[in-house]
């Protein structure tokens, strides 16, 4: 155990109503505040240097103006930051999680639903790694709110320096006061592209254009969902107005299908794409310093999967998400999940889901009775349901059909870490008769690098399915006990759960 660990552990008196929250984004903060308000002692763990997550990212650099966060999400930072019963463990990565118990030699279900064994029912041990070394955090109830990260489909040149994710470009601008390039192109699909383009433009970048693969007129097919969310409509209008103000053109039903180096900069090829995103004629080539790409988000489900929580495919966008009830309770007692990991729906929905999970956690800790839970949850439940309908409609408009696989060339890298190309992958699938993700990983090393398949997993599964003629369960890319690489010294030092 690392030095200083005993002090940290004594923060949590045995028997106190303790909640551990993983993730200090909107969902995690909302859960922490909701539970702390009922009297729970809450510890919030996050990899970031400062709470906020991606959406509420707070600058770490003096002079960089924080976003004027609109609405409820923004208030959370203040509420959580000032709350006497909320402790932050910033800069800490959770690298593994197991159901906790008293017998250190006991083993734990890691791949299926289980009943409690030994320790308090549903208690969880989180293994942390922070600036001071390894540590463990054990709590009878946890809320997992690890968010997600940009989904990017591979295309020729996506591995060149200067091609960055839309979220990454935004994080650098918001948190660090740095632009990824002076002249940039924003490409992919989804409303997030507009937010990023407007943000980069206000930070001083020259945004050459936003390339949106969806035709967009499809919005009109979901009037009910839009009508239920007048706020969302106003938000969209604000984004479009920002584009006009910065004179940023929006190119619809087109995609950046290739980027090459061009002198000191980059040149992006933009093509028209059909409804399935098969590439058509070149509409323009754009010289830029950087290309920011985003094709929606990939939920972070690894921790929940490691704890044995059941998962499902979100029919709206095809992502692997954790199965939860309307209050965020997963299939494993004591493990609650909120935010993107239960389905990508944006910051507003994440706040509501976080709040519900925080209330459900308080209920499990005995701080709220059934009636209290029902009363507190009811208004939030209604709002969350509306937002989920809206998110589903948005996903249908911005779905990612398989036509992008035709943008690839044989030498296009699919797995960035292990440098596995599309040609190699397809040749090995047919040459060796590979037909599942496990064999594909072992034989080609796809998804076996440091990112653990986070970046390429879904794309590789899609290519494998096409080449082998067999559907592929995405969970095979998310199943891992070490959810983030961690120094061996930390694994060795880490004592059995206390």
């Amino acid at each position, binding site marked *: 155990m690392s030095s200083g660990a005993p002090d940290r552990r004594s923060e949590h008196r045995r028997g106190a109503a303790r909640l551990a929250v993983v993730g200090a984004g909107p969902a995690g903060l909302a859960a922490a505040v909701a539970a702390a308000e009922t009297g729970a002692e809450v510890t919030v763990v996050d990899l970031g240097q400062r709470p906020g997550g991606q959406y509420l990212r707070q600058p770490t650099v003096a002079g960089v103006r924080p976003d004027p966060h609109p609405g409820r999400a923004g208030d959370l930072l203040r509420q959580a930051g000032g709350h006497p019963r909320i402790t932050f463990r910033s800069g800490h990565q959770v690298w*593994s999680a*197991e159901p906790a118990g008293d017998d*250190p*030699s006991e*083993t*734990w*279900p*890691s*791949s*299926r639903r289980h009943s409690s064994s030994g320790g308090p029912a549903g208690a969880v041990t989180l293994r942390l790694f922070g600036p001071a070394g390894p540590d463990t955090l054990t709590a009878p109830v946890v809320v997992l709110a690890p968010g997600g990260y940009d989904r990017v489909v591979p295309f020729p040149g996506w591995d060149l320096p200067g091609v960055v994710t839309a979220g990454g470009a935004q994080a650098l601008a918001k948190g660090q006061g740095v632009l990824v390039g002076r002249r940039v192109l924003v490409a992919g699909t989804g409303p997030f592209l507009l937010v990023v383009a407007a943000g980069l433009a206000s930070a001083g970048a020259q945004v050459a254009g936003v390339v949106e693969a969806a035709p967009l007129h499809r919005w009109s097919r979901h009037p009910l969902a839009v009508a239920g969310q007048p706020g969302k409509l106003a938000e969209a209008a604000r984004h479009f107005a920002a584009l006009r103000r910065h004179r940023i053109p929006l190119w619809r039903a087109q995609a950046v299908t290739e980027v090459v180096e061009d002198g000191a900069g980059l040149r992006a090829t933009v093509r028209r794409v059909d409804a399935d995103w098969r590439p058509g004629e070149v509409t323009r080539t754009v010289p830029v310093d950087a290309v920011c790409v985003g094709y929606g988000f990939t939920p972070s489900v690894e921790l929940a999967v*490691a704890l044995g929580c059941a998962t499902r495919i979100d029919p709206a966008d095809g992502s692997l998400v954790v199965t939860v009830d309307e209050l965020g309770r997963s299939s494993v007692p004591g493990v609650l999940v909120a935010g993107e990991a239960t389905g990508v729906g944006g910051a507003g929905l994440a706040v509501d889901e976080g709040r519900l999970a925080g209330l459900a956690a308080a209920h499990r800790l005995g701080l709220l009775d059934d009636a209290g839970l029902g009363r507190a949850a009811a208004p939030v439940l209604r709002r969350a349901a509306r937002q989920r309908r809206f998110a589903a409609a948005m996903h249908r408009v911005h779905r990612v059909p398989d036509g992008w696989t035709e943008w690839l060339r044989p030498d296009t890298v699919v797995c960035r870490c*292990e440098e596995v190309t599309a040609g190699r992958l397809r040749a*090995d699938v047919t*040459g*060796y*008769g*590979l*037909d*599942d993700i*496990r*064999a594909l990983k*072992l*034989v080609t*090393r796809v998804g*076996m*690098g*440091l990112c*653990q398949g986070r970046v390429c997993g879904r794309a590789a599964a899609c290519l494998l399915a096409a080449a082998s003629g067999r559907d592929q369960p995405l969970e095979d890319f998310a199943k*891992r*006990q*070490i959810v983030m*690489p*961690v*120094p*061996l*010294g930390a*694994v*060795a030092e*880490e*004592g*059995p*759960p206390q």
Partner: protein
Amino acid sequence: MAGSFDVVVVGAGIVGAACAYACARRGLTVAVLERAGLVAGATGSGEGNLLVSDKLPGPELELALFSNGLWRRWATELGDRYGDIELEAKGGLVVTGVGPGADGAAGLAGLRATARAQAAAGVLVESLDPAGVREREPAITPELAGGLFYPQDMQLMPAKATAALLAAARADGAEVRLRTEVTGLSRDAGGRVVGVRTGAGPVAAGHVVNAAGAWAGALAGLAGADTPVAPRRGFILVTEPVPPLVRHKVYSADYLDNVASGDAGLQSSTVVEGTPAGTILIGATRELVDFDHRYNAEAVRRLAEGAVRLFPPLAAVRAMRVYHGFRPFSPDHLPVIGADSRVPGLVHAHGHEGAGIGLAPATAHLVAQVVSGERPDLALGPFDPARFRTEVEAARAAA
């Protein structure tokens, strides 16, 4: 599904793939039936060590020495057409007296006795003092008493080797049917096995080869030929890719005791090796816990602790993955190879425990000889499938 084959191989792990390759090359018609996918069993979750160093004089060592030569030949045969199987003749290094408090003198004496016996049986082995060990492994801890170097020890990538063997067998006419579980063995009036039943229909066969790994007992049971093979669980830790830090296969001498033991509880010893992919593999734990897929944090902690004690710079290297697999454990630590005298037509190829990758080619060669009616190049007596009478009766009594 139908068809008739000289040989039906059950299981597409490394042993099944090697059997298919050896049989198909002799012109036999072969079908490989696998209920899951390629390398779904132990082959996909082990390391790829091909060791002579961990075996004492006797039938297993003979099998290992025979395999050692075959793997070198097969790697060349396969390499050009079916892909690099990453065979590295890197040598193995066994060290003793690691860390403070270890009894270096006793350890060394034990090691040297082992080395003398192995040398007499044809194993190349070189005795090293601490300086000699550090010359071969500059990053190893200075706190050790000495070691032995085994130049014949090698390593390969098991999944690639299996895939290449099956691709080569297919080129020789073999059929590989994945997602096809064998649910029964068909026998004629005289009791001879004449084929298998699968979810997709029967398949007729002159011989059925049981290469079902840790599940081989269940398969043999379908023919009433009880074989007490049990799963022995092992965890492996994998690091991020790093510049070459561990040059050979390096392990502590207590590994030998753990392998030889039949204890059901958690045993761990330190086994470390680099791979061409840049990762470092860290083993090895052993537990007899049936097919239990649950994570054992203590087992994994011990792996990390042992590796860092042996190679202190590893403390800063990141662990990237942990996985587990089930070694096909046989009670007397010898594999089960050859025709089953109780059930004509049934041929066994399993029970290799932690050495199936290493022993696959010799096993396959012997199986191909048995199926072809040739006199095997090694005496099969010690590997006789019917030898476990006591264990089988005890299991029956318990049931």
